[in-house]
């Protein structure tokens, strides 16, 4: 089984808010001097792919990213945890694509790689669009399952565990399939070993030009008209009351007045 896992390089979400800034006059965050990492849900997706490969003889994991040369770092991180193959769809440094366009490019790669199963993170940790996975399944014409936490081989195909608000749902599916993964304690990305980490730097990263696959009409469907960092205001207010019960009542009243509740 050819498993394709989609990865995105994003600004480190652990960046302290005080260090987050926007490019002057740009509709994008400043990236200079800021660490770039693999999007966290994509890490979960990669772990799900690796765990499935371990249970399926002959299966391979190919990791794919759409981005400039610097984005190869996330592919190398995946190679360090023993992904079999890495592919980058080259993109100019400043090129910005909508989720739909990225899905179109990834669909093109999935076809070229003859992937059976495509696994994505549920949303990128930068824009939180959450669109690529399911648009990708639409582009490919394959069934898609979202909020997946793990995939196991089953008697009739694959068994996918989905996380719901009230519990879990277990579904069966056959390839070709797109699985959109959410985080769970069972799919935290493993940490690499020293030799694999060093070897990952020497492994080949293939370039696939999937430009023909980009769905042109997607461009322009979403227009970014403004981007700003919210100003946080902290005020302290003492809630009056004779005892705990009265203070709690007054607190609730005040929160209702402020429309917090």
């Amino acid at each position, binding site marked *: 089984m050819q498993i394709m896992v989609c990865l995105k390089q994003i600004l480190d979400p652990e960046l302290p808010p*005080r260090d987050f800034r926007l490019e002057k006059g740009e509709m994008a965050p400043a990236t200079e001097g800021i660490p770039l990492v693999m999007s966290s849900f994509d890490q979960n997706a990669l772990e799900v792919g690796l765990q499935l490969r371990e249970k399926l003889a002959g299966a391979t994991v190919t990791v794919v990213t759409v981005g400039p040369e610097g984005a190869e*770092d996330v592919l*190398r*991180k995946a190679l*360090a945890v023993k992904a079999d193959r890495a592919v980058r769809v080259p993109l100019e440094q400043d090129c910005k694509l909508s989720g739909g366009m990225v899905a179109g490019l990834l669909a093109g790669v999935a076809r070229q790689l003859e992937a059976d199963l495509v696994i994505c993170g549920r949303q990128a940790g930068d824009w939180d669009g959450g669109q690529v996975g399911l648009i990708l399944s639409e582009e490919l014409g394959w069934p898609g399952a979202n909020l997946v936490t793990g995939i196991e081989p089953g008697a009739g195909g694959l068994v996918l565990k989905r996380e719901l608000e009230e519990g879990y749902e277990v579904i069966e599916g056959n390839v070709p399939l797109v699985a959109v993964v959410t985080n769970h304690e069972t799919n935290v990305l493993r*940490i*690499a*070993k*020293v*030799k694999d*980490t*060093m070897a*990952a*730097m*020497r492994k080949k990263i293939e370039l696939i030009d999937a430009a023909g696959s980009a769905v042109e009409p997607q461009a322009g469907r979403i227009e970014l008209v403004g981007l700003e960092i919210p100003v946080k205001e902290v005020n302290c207010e003492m809630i009056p009351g004779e005892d705990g019960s009265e203070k709690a009542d007054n607190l609730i009243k005040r929160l209702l007045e402020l429309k917090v509740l």
Partner: protein
Amino acid sequence: MNFELDKELLFLKEMVRDLVQEKVAPRAAEIDETDEYPWDIKEALAEHEILAMPFPEEYGGTGGKVLPLVIAVEEIAKVSCSVAMIPEGQCLGSTAIVIAGTEEQKQRFLPGLASGEKLCALSVTEPNAGSDVGGIQCTAVRDGNDYVLNGTKRFVSFGNIADVLTLIVKTVDKNTGDKKLSCFVVEKGEGLVVRNLEHKMGIKGTPTAELFFDNMRVPAENLLGAEGDGFKIAMQVFDKTRIGIAAQALGLAQGALDIAVQYARDRVQFGSPIGKFQAIQMKLADMEIKTQAARYLTYAAADKYDRKAHDRGKFTAMAKTFASDVAMEVTSEAIQVLGGYGYIKDYPVERMFRDAKIQQIYEGTNEIQRIVIARSLLGRGF
């Protein structure tokens, strides 16, 4: 000339950082508090091949180069010097075998140490012989196919949990009475009593032991090199492993500096973050200057060792001395930046300060290092 780490090493640094954040950071304060050796973390270091880093690939290691090991040790020591000592101890205990062992000795001992299945320790110091290695009184007397060991060794890091010991003792010629420093690799067994020496000021969780050899028989094939090679082997071992001490010191300095910077940004006094006050800015700037200088000297020493440069011994001594002095200064200043909070255990800088002190002492005091450096300038006879 390029002063940047190459991509491979940067990538390794990131990998070690991930491991440290997941496994070490949550346990660092607890290890210091309980003073217990963290077996769980030792297992994680073995699983992720950090313990394999001091060893050549043919014996199950990752290559044995010093610079990658320095990068890893620095990264661990930013969070816990006690944990950073685990790979360092494995390097220290095994280097005599790597340097002076026969092929048979290497095949016999190194794979088990590289996998982390077995632990090792180096034992040189005695109650009356520290900096003065020539004053060693432990003896090994040839008796048939064995040597018989007698004497006491002190301050042996990991001595109580090590399966394999490398030690410097005096071999005694029964006929002439001549004594020569020699090096042995010893597996624990009959004739060896181990006593824990605890209550150290810092590096808690790294056990220190005293070893008593009482007519312990060691097979003659456990002699490393020839009789009389002991001093040379010990010096060659330290030329390598003292760079690891520099790396620990560097990690301590960087870890304390990071906390001080964070605190200076957050702590508000007189209506401003204290980082806006020049008194604090001067301190942080000096800490950064010293830490960066220590980093480049440490990396240079590691690079010279890996390239077998002729002046590698001097650079090792300079890196160990400078980085450990810097660690002492920077951790002390970090406490000053944090004020009262720096003096209590809620923040790790007081632990880092206690851990920094030993860096100036073990594996050759900084005073001995300065003599080594001065003699490299003045030549023989000084």
